[in-house]
């Protein structure tokens, strides 16, 4: 079946979503990332892999962390990086996404890193490049609507593999606002593809998408039940605007029922790790004592994120 992420040789052409990527490719990305973690420890933190390539960071939505880590990753591979903050640029003048793409292609772009508020926007770009015969240009999805955030999902997998070595015996819990979370969707796709036997999702019914149980996960509403004996706890960010309204009564109540505290974490396995994609709402989804505690691997996630993004860019730019 046609897969817009792969070329005719079955190799990665674009990174749009982890849903639909074969396990071999996910593993290859993680394997490629491993040696890149060492680059950061060198005196000269640069490799010549993407020398002469132009990478456009196309951010239609604000982001500091993701954009910065993509920029660092590209620069460590010696690429030229151009940051476009489109929310203050041409689309306000009415230019369409595809017009923007065409213009940047005319400036000899080699790769796009795109974040967009609408699910599927990177697919539209990839399809447009295919239809216009520009197979040498690659798209990396840096987050689209509620759909996917594949590099976040990959860096999470890298982190889990780093601390737990093997995926096939793990119980992993994802906690919080799954409904609006592109991170959760990418995590679920990756965990199920990599063979994690028990993926649990925990949260109120208002924040669970329809048909979640058909995505290979077990749904829990009681956090204590859901955390029992898990090896990994992945917290999700709760957006401020969703804390009080039709979905939830308040941030305080959310914290009381679904916030991660030391007391609830004690129900997980003693060696369980705690992850968060950031930025954290301390006192809403996670207590500071846990966020700064011995089981948290939240800052290593950020560091691994650079290596994983280097891996993706180098694999796409190898041609």
């Amino acid at each position: 079946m046609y897969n817009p992420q792969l070329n005719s040789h079955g190799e990665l052409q674009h990174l749009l979503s982890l849903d639909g990527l074969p396990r071999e490719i996910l593993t290859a990305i993680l394997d490629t990332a491993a040696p890149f973690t060492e680059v950061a420890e060198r005196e000269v933190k640069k490799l010549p892999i993407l020398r002469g390539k132009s990478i456009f960071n196309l951010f239609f939505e604000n982001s500091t962390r993701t954009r910065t880590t993509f920029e660092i990753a590209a620069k460590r591979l010696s690429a030229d990086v151009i940051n476009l903050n489109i929310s203050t640029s041409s689309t306000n003048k009415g230019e369409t996404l595809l017009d923007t793409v065409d213009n940047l292609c005319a400036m000899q772009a080699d790769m796009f890193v795109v974040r967009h508020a609408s699910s599927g926007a990177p697919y539209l770009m990839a399809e447009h490049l295919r239809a216009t015969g520009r197979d040498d240009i690659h798209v990396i999805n840096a987050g689209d609507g509620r759909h996917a955030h594949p590099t976040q999902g990959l860096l999470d997998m890298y982190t889990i593999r780093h601390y737990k070595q093997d995926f096939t015996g793990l119980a992993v819990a994802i906690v919080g606002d799954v409904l609006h979370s592109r991170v959760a969707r990418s995590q679920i796709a990756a965990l199920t593809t990599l063979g994690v036997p028990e993926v649990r999702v925990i949260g109120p019914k208002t924040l669970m998408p329809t048909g979640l149980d058909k995505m290979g996960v077990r749904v829990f509403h009681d956090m204590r039940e859901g955390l029992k004996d898990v090896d990994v706890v992945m917290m999700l960010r709760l957006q401020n605007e969703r804390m009080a309204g039709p979905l939830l009564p308040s941030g305080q109540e959310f914290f009381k029922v679904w916030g991660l505290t030391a007391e609830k974490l004690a129900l997980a396995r003693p060696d369980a790790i705690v992850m968060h994609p950031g930025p954290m709402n301390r006192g809403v989804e996670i207590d500071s004592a846990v966020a700064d505690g011995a089981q948290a691997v939240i800052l290593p996630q950020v560091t691994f994120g650079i290596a994983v993004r280097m891996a993706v860019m180098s694999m796409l730019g190898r041609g």
Partner: protein
Amino acid sequence: MNIHIANGRLVDPAHEIDRPADLFIADGKVAAIGTRPDGFAADTTIEASGLVVCPGLVDLAARLREPGFEYLATLDSEMEAAMAGGVTSLAIPPDTDPPLDEPGLVEMLCYRAKLLNKAHIYPVGALTERLEGKRLSEMAELVDAGCVAFSQANVPIDDPQVLFCALQYAATFGFRVWLQPITPRFAREGVAHDGEVASRLGLPGIPTAAETMALFTYIELARLTGASLHITRLSSAEGLELVRRARAEGLDITCDVSINHLHLCDMDIGYFDANCRLCPPLRSQRDRDALRAGLASGEVDALCSNHTPVDDDAKQIPFSEAEAGATGLELLLPLTLKWGHAHKLSLCDTLRRITIAPARIIGSKAGQLAAGARADVCIFDPAGETTVTRTQLRSQGKNTPFLGHNLPGRVCYTLVEGKVMFSPA
């Protein structure tokens, strides 16, 4: 002008006719079927051996985009499409700009259509002024101007008291009210059926309950007011079940589905195909199968194209930002035949859903071929194929989920009031 359509297979669902028979047309009317009338001398003979001769098709929902959206399509372009599709009678939803809420607008539209002299149009007037759901439109005047029914198109009335009064008022005159079952505030951000596919793709969902809750309200108000309803564009198995029960109870309710919902489901969105961004949304496979079966059993009265030309600028953007709609006039016959084949229905039963059944809902004498009837005729090759491509489509709207498909059946001739308006190039 006398026309002799010779050696065709005549199919007229209104009279349960399916047999080889010649059709004789004089003065824009059917002069005779089978036997040449005394003294009939044909000016033109159309050789129809191997072809099906049936009534011109009747479509319950064709947006021609005039007035107000002429950049998307014009009466001219869409009438061309109708002729190429064998569609000779079109019901026009009121969501033009301004909406069809004034007799003058309706008269102008009818006048413009008459000048073009192609398909007959049947405007459906706005149920409320500017479709705002606040003040009733002048229904009696609008009917005098040419409206055949009243509707809110895709903009349902939010206030149940206004809807109640609108139905009461329409029932006063016996006007049928066409309602699309949507609970607008239950689907505010939604762009796709709230199910596994939308969840996976991260697309905000429109729950089936947005349809069923509206139907509960409509049916209860029909019960209270005695209004005749036509439910447009059913999309779910649950919705169909509610309509079925209301009819069993004896309420005067008819319903239709669109060609897209008859053949597609949410899985067809694939990788965010904006051509599948439709209103109502494509629902699950189970829903689609229920609608197909319902149309076959007669629980769904009619099939329509829900023709909605949308331009590329509104489709070549991310799925959730794309405008809902697809072109359909030229696909109505092929997609009806495709469904009929799959359900092993006779040609008569198949064509009924796009001829006499919709004509009855409009309250028109169109959609049949009795002697003395208006000679609106569609002649098609049942063994031929229609290939859906952007260049083949005459409609200004080039977007449909069926682009690239080969569909059964090919329209050869379209006659309106005894004039050949479409013929092989």
